[in-house]
Each structure stands twice: as C-alpha cells, then as structure tokens.
C-alpha cells in the first residue's frame, strides 16, 4: 500500500511556519537582553499570533503538530501516523 506523496501546500505551510517560528526564537532571545525594546516586543506578539494561525490551518489539514494535548487531533487518532519530522 503506497502512501501518496505530500501535497505541495504541505511544504509551503511548513516553510512559512518554520520561518515565523525562527523569527520568534530570535526575538525571544533578543528580548531576554532588551526587555525595554517595545518595537521588538510588538513584532514578537504579531509573529506569535501569526504562528498560532499558521499552526491552526496546518493542523486542520495535516493533523497534529504536537503531542500530549498541545495539538488537537483529526479523526481517527493521527498522532502515530507518518510522516514524522525526519520523513517529510
């Protein structure tokens, strides 16, 4: 039983999510040492919202990103299904 390859949109959404999350990591580290920088903080919050929105659209189509209740699951239980991060 061959599994159909992932649609192109999967990779688009995944790259957008990775880009947004990378910016969040950088800003998080930056804000640790620059707590007064309002511009960076505003940017952080907008990107955090963007990341949540991207995750929601991703998970509606491709199943949970995180286990342990940090993501909703599609039916049937999808957490154990491939592709895993190293397989995409």
């Amino acid at each position, binding site marked *: 039983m061959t599994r159909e390859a992932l649609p192109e949109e999967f990779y688009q959404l995944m*790259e957008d999510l*990775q*880009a*947004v999350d*990378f*910016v969040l990591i*950088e*800003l998080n580290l*930056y804000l640790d*040492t*620059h707590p007064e*920088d309002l*511009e*960076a903080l505003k940017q952080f919050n907008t*990107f955090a919202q963007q990341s949540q929105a991207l995750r929601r659209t991703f998970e509606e189509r491709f199943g949970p990103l995180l286990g342990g209740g940090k993501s909703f699951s599609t039916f049937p239980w999808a957490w154990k299904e491939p592709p895993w991060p190293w397989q995409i």
Partner: protein
Amino acid sequence: MAFTNRKTYTPFIGRYDPCQPIRVKTYETPPHLYLGFQPPGLEQFSPKEALKRGTLWKALYSPYTSPYGDYR
C-alpha cells in the same frame, strides 16, 4: 566598520614534526564579536531569508565560509 569574518595565524612548525605541517590556520570572527551590546532597531532580513541566513539581523550575518582550499 571594516572587519573580516575569518582571520589567519601561522602555527609554530617544529623540525621533527612527523606530519605534513599546516602553515596557515584560520579562525572565525563573526560580527557579534565586534558589536558589543546589540543596539535596538537593527535592519532585519525577511522571515524566509532569516531562516536561510541563520540570523534575523543583517548586521549579525556571517557567511561561515569553508577555510579549506583557500588557505591550504
């Protein structure tokens, strides 16, 4: 602010050194070494670009070139 991302030094080579001596060795000097405390409001890459470059801020980017081949 002229700086280079890679600098060289010449190690001491002993007379009885059994291996082929490496005459010039290099080390990384990325921009954050010269920056001190990062000023606010530095110019940024776009998110996609930042993901590829490995940093959000243009001033902190260093190409991380391979030293082999140029300095042998």
